[in-house]
């Protein structure tokens, strides 16, 4: 059922991009005033969160916010993503101050002082958040590519933040692989634009909202080529196998708050870009959906099998993200409205649970100084809050009720069964057991059993701000699991604005 949306000109979309960008630039300009960094970052992210909430409320009323002459729009799908990005970013910024100061002091990064490193961190962090928000808002297909690429560049320095051999290698790999990968998306976008503009004429062919109306008239070879480019391009950024090899390195080497953002929201932004562009062709060319589905199932299984073999806590979490993105694609690739709903539902749940896991992993590393699973143990007594949060995150992702992951996985499986994709459902159900083994075994290794002697007895619970950020996420995981109806209407509206393979296109309607 296509919902009737009224276009409303608004400042909000532009503010969402400019405020964090401005904050980032200010942080660099005011680098001598060390107290401004954290304050600016906090205020900017709080402001973004407030705007996103306001924007979500307007889209729930059926409005579609547009700015800069249709260049930026917030429809219900964008609103969902923007809300997710700004909420997780806010919590990460809340988590950062104590964590980063402690970390930068210990890391002893060459040729720089603590203060200058912190300026770099917060400055780029704000720019990174701004580019992610921009990618969510862009209605211009070429600028969508630009925004996604910009978020790669903005986070590149964050990934290589520690400036040691491993971090530099990870940062290099991150920039190279993603830039090469995402170039495919540029080919796809240009192809779509070129074909679209011949129908629409001029710059209108740049706007996704316009392209949507004419996508059915594209020749099928163009569609096949363009969607292959788009899927490979944005799929690389989303960590879809076999284009994922950058992901474990980047997630493992980046400072933990950045890992949480990379895994928690950046992957979702990439999937969002893919949903925006690829689903344009669903109604006229359903095999695209099948391709997405197959890729999703492959990713889901491969990611978890790789995660099973990891001994590094953060690498394990990174591979698990790969796997969960596979679940999201499974939903999106079904091409039905329930499938899209379930995919988006899982996007939300994974964003919450995985950020929680990364933040908790960061807290463990902060307090104990260890990141190898086999060298950990017995930390529950020392760090009860972190332990609680990690277990909640692990169980949520494994799809254990009454946590949120259960609800979205159930929706995914039902959607798969109703679409007749039983093979995907069975593999999905089996994979969720592997997820459980991976994550719960890790949680058990870290928090239960005997504490190895290598960990100092004076290990303490993480600072209050760190615990607060984690607890908010844990409570959200639990709350959505117990009362999933609470987020029904935003998700339903968002899913409704995505085309499915059953959406009647203007073309087919005309034929009837």
């Amino acid at each position, binding site marked *: 059922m296509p919902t009737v949306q009224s276009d409303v000109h608004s400042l909000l979309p532009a503010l969402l991009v400019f405020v964090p960008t401005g904050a980032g630039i200010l942080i660099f300009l005011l680098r001598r005033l060390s107290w401004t960094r954290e304050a600016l970052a906090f205020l900017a992210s709080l402001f973004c969160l407030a705007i996103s909430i306001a924007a979500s409320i307007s889209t729930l009323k059926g409005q579609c916010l547009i700015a800069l002459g249709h260049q930026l729009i917030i429809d219900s799908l964008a609103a969902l993503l923007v809300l997710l990005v700004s909420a997780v970013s806010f919590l990460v910024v809340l988590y950062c101050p104590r964590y980063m100061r402690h970390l930068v002091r210990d890391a002893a990064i060459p040729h720089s002082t603590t203060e200058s490193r912190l300026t770099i961190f917060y400055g780029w962090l704000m720019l990174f958040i701004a580019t992610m928000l921009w990618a969510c808002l862009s209605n211009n297909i070429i600028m969508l590519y630009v925004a996604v690429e910009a978020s790669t560049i903005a986070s590149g320095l964050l990934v290589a933040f520690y400036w040691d051999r491993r971090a530099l290698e990870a940062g290099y790999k991150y920039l190279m692989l993603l830039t090469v990968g995402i170039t495919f998306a540029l080919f796809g976008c240009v192809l779509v634009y070129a074909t679209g503009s011949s129908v629409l004429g001029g710059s209108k062919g740049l706007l996704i909202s316009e392209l949507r109306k004419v996508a059915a008239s594209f020749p099928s070879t163009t569609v096949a080529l363009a969607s292959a480019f788009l899927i490979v391009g944005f799929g690389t950024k989303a960590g879809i196998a076999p284009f994922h090899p950058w992901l474990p390195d980047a997630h493992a080497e980046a400072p933990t708050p950045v890992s949480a953002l990379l895994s928690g929201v950046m992957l979702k932004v990439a999937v969002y870009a893919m949903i925006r562009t690829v689903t344009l062709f669903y109604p006229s060319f359903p095999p695209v959906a099948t391709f997405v589905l197959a890729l999703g199932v492959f990713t889901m299984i491969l990611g978890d099998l790789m995660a099973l073999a990891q001994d590094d806590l953060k690498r394990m979490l990174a591979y698990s993200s790969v796997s969960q993105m596979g679940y999201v694609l499974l939903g999106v690739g079904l091409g039905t409205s*329930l499938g899209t709903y379930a995919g988006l539902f899982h996007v939300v749940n994974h964003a919450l649970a995985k950020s929680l896991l990364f933040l908790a992993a960061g807290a463990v590393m902060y307090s104990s100084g260890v990141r190898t699973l086999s060298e950990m143990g*017995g930390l529950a007594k020392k760090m009860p809050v972190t332990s609680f949060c990690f277990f909640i995150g692990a169980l949520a992702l494994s799809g*254990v009720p*009454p946590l949120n992951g259960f609800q979205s996985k159930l929706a995914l499986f039902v959607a798969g069964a*109703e679409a007749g994709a039983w093979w995907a459902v069975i593999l999905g159900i089996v994979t969720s*057991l592997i997820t459980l083994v991976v994550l719960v075994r890790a949680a058990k290794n870290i928090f239960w*059993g005997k504490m190895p002697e290598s960990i100092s007895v004076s290990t303490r619970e993480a600072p209050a701000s760190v615990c607060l950020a984690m607890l908010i996420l844990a409570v959200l995981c639990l709350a959505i699991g117990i009362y999933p109806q609470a987020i029904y209407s935003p998700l*339903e509206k968002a899913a409704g604005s995505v085309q499915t393979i059953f959406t009647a296109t203007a073309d087919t309607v005309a034929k009837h």
Partner: protein
Amino acid sequence: MHAMVAAVIGVPIAGAVLCLAVRDKASKYIAVLATAVAAAYASAIAAAQSKVTVVFGGLPWLGEGAAKALFGYQVDPLASIMLLAATIIGLVTAIYSFGYVSVGNREHSTSSGQARYFFWLMLFVASMCGIALSPNLLQLLIFWEMTTLCSWALISFYDNEESLKAGMKALIMTSFGGLFFIGGLVWVFSATKSMGFDALALMTPTARAWAFVLFLIAAWAKSAQLPFHTWLPDAMAAPTPISAYLHAASMVKAGVFLVARLLLAGWHLPYDAALLLVVAALVTMFSALYFYFFQSDAKRLLAFSTIAQLGYIMLGLGIGSMGADLATRGAVLHILMHAFAKTLLFLSIGVVAYTQGTRELTKLSGLAAKAPVAAFGFFVGAFALSGVPPLPCFWSKLYMLSGALQLKGSFGPVILVLVMLESLATFGWFLYVGQRIFYGKPANEDPCGIPLSMNAILIALILATILVPIAGIPIAAQIVGL
């Protein structure tokens, strides 16, 4: 009814949350209080003898059928039986743990962690009540997975190598079974747009049989039936009161409860599937019996006896689905009867382990003089379990066998003979084991300090075990089969 149902699930959950908030010392009082309230309300629900199904809401994205009728409760005789078992045994466990989970315990001296222990125990009680009251497959699945979590956490409670391993094993094996549950649920829902227990009626007989087999596999894993039985003996690494609760009234009972719920939903199970149920139950019973003779650990022996007794329940349900109502009633009654008998056995062995610091049969002897209550409890439990009249399991087995004899052909007599054989062997072996533990020359002269709370609850439980048929039989008699 709303309030009573809310209390029976809500009070233990509130107790669990409260346990996290207070210190270790206060947690046990909260636990006893919360389970006592739950048990009182459960008894009230059972006494009301009503049959109601109420639904409040659903998951709107799953479509029309699921939008309204997914979450609520269902009260009927089967739910009452399960509720009584879950809450009363929960209360007994909580009171017993009062003394057991303490520094005085010679097997596992425990000085901290009581809050965690009682948190999971409360959550366990609440989840079991949730299972009992679930009006459809989805809600049952949610509580089902919660019991898996609770048992995993409680089996791992001692936090040593052995118990952590056993906990993971239980979690993985029962979650593996859970996959089949989810698979079956998704199948049934996509085929019928309903998650009710009676949705299977809308499927074709072949599809129905296969869907039932999916649920059956889930139930086998949960109820530790062959070939998924191996997690249960390992789960003996749990504290003994937890083992008692796990075996008698929760976790494993959830599996047979699911099968009973499905079979009583008013649809006909194809004969082949019923036969599979019966044969698998018999195989489980006799394999478990075979393992009795090689157990040197008293608790592992009880674990195999649980496996066999759950086989009985499956057997009764299988015979019932072939058309003998009496056997279904017997099976449901056995859920409650076995709960009391098995708890009594476990708690008696728990006293032995508490005072002697070991459960090895070779190291125990002559304890009757030191722990007379435990000795008496063990023998009453053993008699009750093997079906000595007029103790609990006699009645349930009587129902089941009468049911079997109602069937046409030679099937009934064969089952009669097999059940008699199994019961006799159990009787003989338990007498032998009891005699070894409690009679003969004492292994040592150490004095036994048994906490008053443990002895008192044992005495109460012995009385309850003797009297429970009076409460159970009238409820089971109301169960109308297929």
